[in-house]
């Protein structure tokens, strides 16, 4: 058990380091898009450690408790995440619902402390974050329901092994589901088309408005680990997990860069456009994919 817990937090640390450096690289890629050099690859580390070195202002005990709860919840979630077939913390307790709901702990902690700061911009930002979550979460879970039903198990490693044994990734088996899940991934990562809740122009960076110094640093760490969880979740569910670490890092890099590039050419939706977009187009697509996959499986082969 102790070994499991240690490897769990090892995975969380690895996730943080890997995603932060990948964030720096992707900022360079985006800069190259705009014909400029872009920051150093370890710029995200510099930002986070600079924030942790500053003396911030705090708005009361709930403001700090929320940040601690958010970071703690996210570290616990990352601990359950299997990296490859043999690097994992706990054998069969990594089922899908732990991630969806433990990320909600992070969201709740941040939301609680943001609205505890007394700034109306933060509350509006939190409202938008929750509304966006309502929009992208339902189609994603419908698609994952199909995967769990099809693979027979809800543990990520099980699904990854199922795809490896069958030799067919769910990206190929459920093409429509893959597109839906990728768009939901953009929503989860808070990437540009669905970035309404951190909109710097309208809400002065939404929930983050009152944070500075170490609180903001801890929230940046939480954001990096959340991105790691969501992208590796996507890799395990749709790209068949990974035999060894390099395959995992490669798949992870490809998924994150594609998401980043897609997000850099997009504007930003208004908040009710986000909800209408997801419920008018993405959910019906997910429903069709689910119906075809579950009830008409004998149809095409």
């Amino acid at each position, binding site marked *: 058990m102790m070994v499991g817990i240690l490897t769990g937090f090892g995975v969380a640390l690895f996730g943080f380091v890997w995603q932060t450096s990948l964030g720096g690289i992707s900022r360079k890629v985006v800069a190259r898009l705009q014909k400029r050099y872009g920051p150093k690859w370890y710029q995200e580390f510099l930002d986070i450690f600079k924030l942790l070195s500053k003396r911030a202002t705090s708005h009361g005990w*709930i403001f700090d408790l929320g940040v601690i709860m958010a970071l703690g919840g996210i570290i616990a979630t990352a601990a359950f995440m299997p990296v490859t077939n043999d690097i994992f913390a706990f054998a069969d307790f990594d089922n899908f619902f732990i991630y969806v709901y433990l990320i909600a702990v992070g969201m709740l902690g941040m939301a609680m402390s943001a609205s505890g700061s007394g700034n109306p911009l933060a509350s509006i930002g939190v409202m938008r974050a929750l509304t966006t979550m309502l929009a992208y979460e339902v189609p994603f879970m419908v698609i994952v329901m199909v995967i769990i039903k099809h693979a027979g198990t809800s543990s990520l490693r099980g699904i990854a092994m199922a795809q490896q044994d069958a030799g067919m990734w769910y990206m190929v088996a459920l093409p429509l589901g893959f597109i839906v899940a990728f768009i939901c991934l953009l929503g989860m990562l808070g990437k540009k088309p669905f970035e309404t809740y951190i909109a710097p122009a309208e809400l002065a960076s939404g929930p983050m408005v009152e944070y500075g110094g170490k609180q903001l640093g801890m929230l940046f760490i939480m954001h990096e680990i959340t991105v790691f969880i969501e992208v590796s979740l996507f890799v395990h569910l749709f790209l068949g997990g990974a035999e060894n670490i390099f395959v995992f890092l490669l798949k992870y890099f490809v998924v994150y860069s594609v998401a980043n590039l897609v997000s850099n050419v997009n504007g930003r939706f208004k908040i009710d456009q986000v909800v209408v977009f997801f419920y008018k187009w993405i959910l019906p697509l997910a429903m069709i994919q689910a119906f075809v996959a579950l009830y008409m499986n004998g149809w095409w082969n």
Partner: protein
Amino acid sequence: MDIFTNVEFIILLTLGFGVIAYLVGRYNKTAGAFATIIGTAITFLAVAYYGLNGELDFTADLFPAFSYGFSNLGIFFAVIVSFIFLMVSFFNPYFVGKYKYPALYSMLFMFSLAGAMGVFFTNDFLDMFFFFEFVVWTSLFLIPLGGSKKAATMYYGFSAAGSFALLFAIFMIQKETGRFNMETAFAHVFTTKQSVVIFFLFMFSGFAKLGAFPLHIWLPKVLGKAPDPISAVFSGGLEKLGAFVAIIGIIRFMPMAITDTAGLFAYLNATAFLSNGMTLLQLIIGLLGAMTIVFGTLMAIRQDDAKKLLAYSSMSNGGYILVAIVLMDSITFSGGLYHIVAHALASTAAFLAIGAVSRQTGTTKMSELGGHIHEMPITYMVYLIAIISMAGIPPMGGFISKWLIFQGVIDKGLIVIGAATFFGSIGSFLYVFRPLAALFLGQQLPQFKDKVKEAPILMLIPLLVLSALNIVTGIFPIQSMRFLNINAVLNELGLQSLVFNGWTIAGHNGGLQATLIAGMFGIGVVIAFVLFMLLKKSKQVGLMDTYTAGNFIYTEELLHYSVDFYAPLERLYEKYINIMKNFYKSLANKVKEFGRVTKYFFFTNKPEITVFWIIVVIAFLLWGDIV
């Protein structure tokens, strides 16, 4: 002390305490309320201690007309409902002074508990109907104490419809089996036509009492307008009567196999309607449950009154219980039972926390409240733990039951119901967060600057006990399931019991080690806390010192964001919220219209018309003989 093991004595004792509470209440209001605390405490301890050890004896010697019978399901519900009554009774002394008839309040409070105990323990359908009506009548007079007669009439309307449907079903059973006894009714095999009708009637009364989709109009109005403790009792305890009747209806009277008649009834319960072996009836009830979840969530998101919001949340959770039961799968059913426990604890804690705030501020409208965390931190923490459980987030009980329910929904491959349950669980996060942000956090409003203080000790006891239980049911689900012996209930209803290997609960597609998740969450928080403490101390800053783009702001209430919290989301479905209300209004107008027509024809002041109708009626009656 063997008399306490006798069920009939416990019920009589509760009634007796009700009368004592009334008499003492006439003399001094709060003393009467304290009597209710003692009464509910004794009832709960007797039912819980003896019930869970299985030593209750069910002989009825004082009143032979009533007969009681042993059933694990009944004990399970009785323990939960009496516990909720005990927790809420701690609030009575502080709230009873506000109402017009304090003594009557205490008495009816005890009577409705007695009635609920009666429903759960009896094994005779007619007694069950009597106790059912007794609960409806006692709680009926509790509601207008909160100031709204219309809520009471609406509550009575729907409950009466539910009760009469139950009565009609009971008489159908009696005609078929000759006796009102439950065991014989359960054992008897009804023809599909009869079993479908009985099933429909049971579900109708279950829906009416649970506040599920078609008959949900009364729930928000009653829970919104009733006095605070009573709405807590309703959402935590009395609503579970509906779940009890629904369980009996589904498990005992749901026709599974096709017996004889062809045609519509055969089609209705064709076994393999879907490839996963669910019958059409199950699917219909499941879809109704799913619609309850979706409409409950959508309506809860747009409420401004915190109590109405929690009322819609208990409607949505009622939908969860329905979906969990109707899937007839042992894991999901245990999820449903566990959800009853988790929801009862969480929604009672939330209602009582809001009640503690509204006691001092006088209102539960979120647009008028704000920033109460600074005066009432403990109430805030209680409400936070309650909404973590209601939203189904790991360290609390709500997560376990939602996890179990998802197992069944996914295993059966129900797409629409699955989407509805996912929508409900994410939506519940939205609407439970709204009172947290609008009522507790944010700016402190000047009008409550010094009026609001932390709730007194006696009120804090139940709040802390409930949140402790919320945590315990979340971290040690296996122990709490064994404590409430849910497996015995499952076996009694003919389902295999849950499989616990070591610390994990075995689901269809994976194990759940709740203690490990909570442990990791705890360790994660410790790590974050250590990191927080290592770094520089941050400068404490007042609430007014926020980023306002350089403007100098001196008025706090302008800076509190609480009115129309989810405005962009509400605008999307604003036009469709009153469909069911208008449906019932038009129904009411049609009945009035029909009444006017008959009045026009039959009750005229011209004697010759009435004479004419008398002749017609006599002729009709004697038709066989005359011709």
